[in-house]
């Protein structure tokens, strides 16, 4: 068993890293390539044009970064709060119509987002939400809430409600019970779920385009525009700008969660594994 494990560590891990990181290599090369033609292994010249584009106000990359960040963080927070209570209801209570609620919550994942959005876009226009950040945040909640609720309901299903009774008989009021006992217990799961919501929102394209109507420019929208215009430098630089923040966030979350002592850390990993 330990020999197999050692082999996995020696061979499997490097293979996995190579497989994950290789696709970024061309991206890195293209982002600095001045001239790059077929038989050459490396670009003939390098250029700083791609990097300059990032900070050039004309390209709107900074605006896109700001929009993407504000929207994705808002989506993570709102979906996290909704998923926290919906997940608690589904995970800890057996009530009439529970299966129906579960199905309705999953429906947005089953039905293509495009179909849903084409339908509700009309209402977004009527209520003046089309073309606003708020509108984009709202439409991003459609595919994110199901995931967050799903994760949180399995986290709550593993939470023993006796802890809340124990806290109450020690003198903790309803708010104190939630803040001091329950929330710390489900926090690792919530962090993972909110991270999911952030990632879904961060890379969303179609829904942003339909509701944002081109006036809310996020990073994926800019990226598609540059890919379409065959500006390879810009597309490569934007691609990296799109990929780096979520990777940093993922790494940070992993470090924070695995650093937690005792069963809390294990529960977080269990939460990740069940997704």
């Amino acid at each position, binding site marked *: 068993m330990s020999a197999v494990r050692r082999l996995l560590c020696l061979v499997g891990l490097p293979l996995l890293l190579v497989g994950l990181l290789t696709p970024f290599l061309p991206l890195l090369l293209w982002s600095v390539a001045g001239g790059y033609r077929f038989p050459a292994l490396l670009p003939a010249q390098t250029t700083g044009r791609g990097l300059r584009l990032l900070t050039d106000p004309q390209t709107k990359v900074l605006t896109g970064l700001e929009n993407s960040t504000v929207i994705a963080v808002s989506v993570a927070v709102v979906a996290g709060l909704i998923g926290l209570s919906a997940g608690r209801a589904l995970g800890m209570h057996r009530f009439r119509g529970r299966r129906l609620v579960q199905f309705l919550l999953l429906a947005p994942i089953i039905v293509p987002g495009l179909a849903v959005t084409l339908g509700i876009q009309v209402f977004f226009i009527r209520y003046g939400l089309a073309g606003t950040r708020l509108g984009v945040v709202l439409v991003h909640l459609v595919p994110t809430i199901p995931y967050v609720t799903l994760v949180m309901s399995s986290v709550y299903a593993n939470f*023993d409600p*006796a*802890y809340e*009774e*124990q*806290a*109450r*008989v*020690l*003198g*903790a*009021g309803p708010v*104190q019970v939630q803040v*001091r*006992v329950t929330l*710390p*217990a489900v926090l690792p799961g919530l962090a993972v779920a909110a991270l999911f919501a952030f990632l879904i929102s961060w890379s969303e394209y179609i829904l942003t385009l339909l509701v944002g109507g081109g006036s809310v420019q996020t990073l994926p929208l800019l990226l598609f525009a540059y890919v379409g215009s065959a500006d390879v430098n810009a597309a490569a630089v934007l691609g990296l700008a799109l990929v780096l923040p979520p990777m940093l966030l993922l790494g940070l979350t992993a470090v924070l969660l695995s650093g*937690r*002592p*005792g*069963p*809390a850390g294990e529960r977080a990993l269990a939460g990740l594994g069940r997704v």
Partner: protein
Amino acid sequence: MATSVQVLRLTRSYGSAPVVRSVDLDVPAGALVALLGPSGCGKTTTLKIVAGLLAPDAGDVRFDGQSVLGVAAERRPVAMVFQKPLLFPHMTVADNVGFGLRMRRTDRAVIRRRVAEMLDLVRLPGFEARPVAELSGGQEQRVSLARALVVEPQVLLLDEPLSQLDAGLRVEMRELVRRVQREVGVTTIFVTHDQEEAVSLADRVALMLDGRVEQYAAPAAFYERPASLRVARFFGSRNYLPGVASGGVFRCALGSLTLRAADGPGVLVIRPEAVRLAGAAAANCVPAVVVATRYLGTSVAVEAAVDATPVHLSVDPSVRLAAGERVLLRLPPEACTVLPPD
């Protein structure tokens, strides 16, 4: 200082299934009362109603004569220890023990001192900084007990706190609970399904069967004067002799025995330890034949037969009996209880 607890005609159902049926219980101030019964008899439900975690359908709970039904669990002068230690995993031992005081916004220095006192009381001095994950099962339950006592509850509720510990540790913890309860003097209700635990720990025992208190008395009464056949069976009586009593004489398969009993049909119950071997014929003596003996170390369990009726008795290991031997059994009238048939 200590508070008395009265439970009056308490009733509670889950859906259509009644779990607690008109339970009455009077716990004197400072006493340790065991609520004994098999699983599903309603003892934990009763305890949770006293704690305020469940509301009763009917009946009342009074502390020192004052109803507490309108008081939320967190405001009752009660602390409870559950079957599982339920230590908050994200806190150290000290933070766990101090939890109740922090909820009451007690001064930090006072909390630190009280936590140290409580850890001394449960014999875990210096454990403040330990993470909860490093404790053994017995240590966890002791921390849990300290955490309940630190808030100086007027009523302490224990819901089978020792049932998940192994046998040796359980006896040790029983002593600890008894000592701590004596030192603190807090009125305590202890739920258990273990009759030995109830009898050795409690001042009074309430035996609950099917949602009712079947008998509420000092421990010895359950052996010497069971209130019903169900109580006698729960406490492991083995001799049941149906018969009819009239004028101080009970006629049954063993013949006519002289004892006090109300006239009418009944079942005679006598514990194996109370049946004696007699030297010469006297009142309430019956000739019998030894069928089998089993050596149990501190006693010998003997099965004898009077004609075809088995009588179980327990004798001192120094007494040597062999199967087929003729003996004379004496049933002392004071050890015999005649109960109504059920």
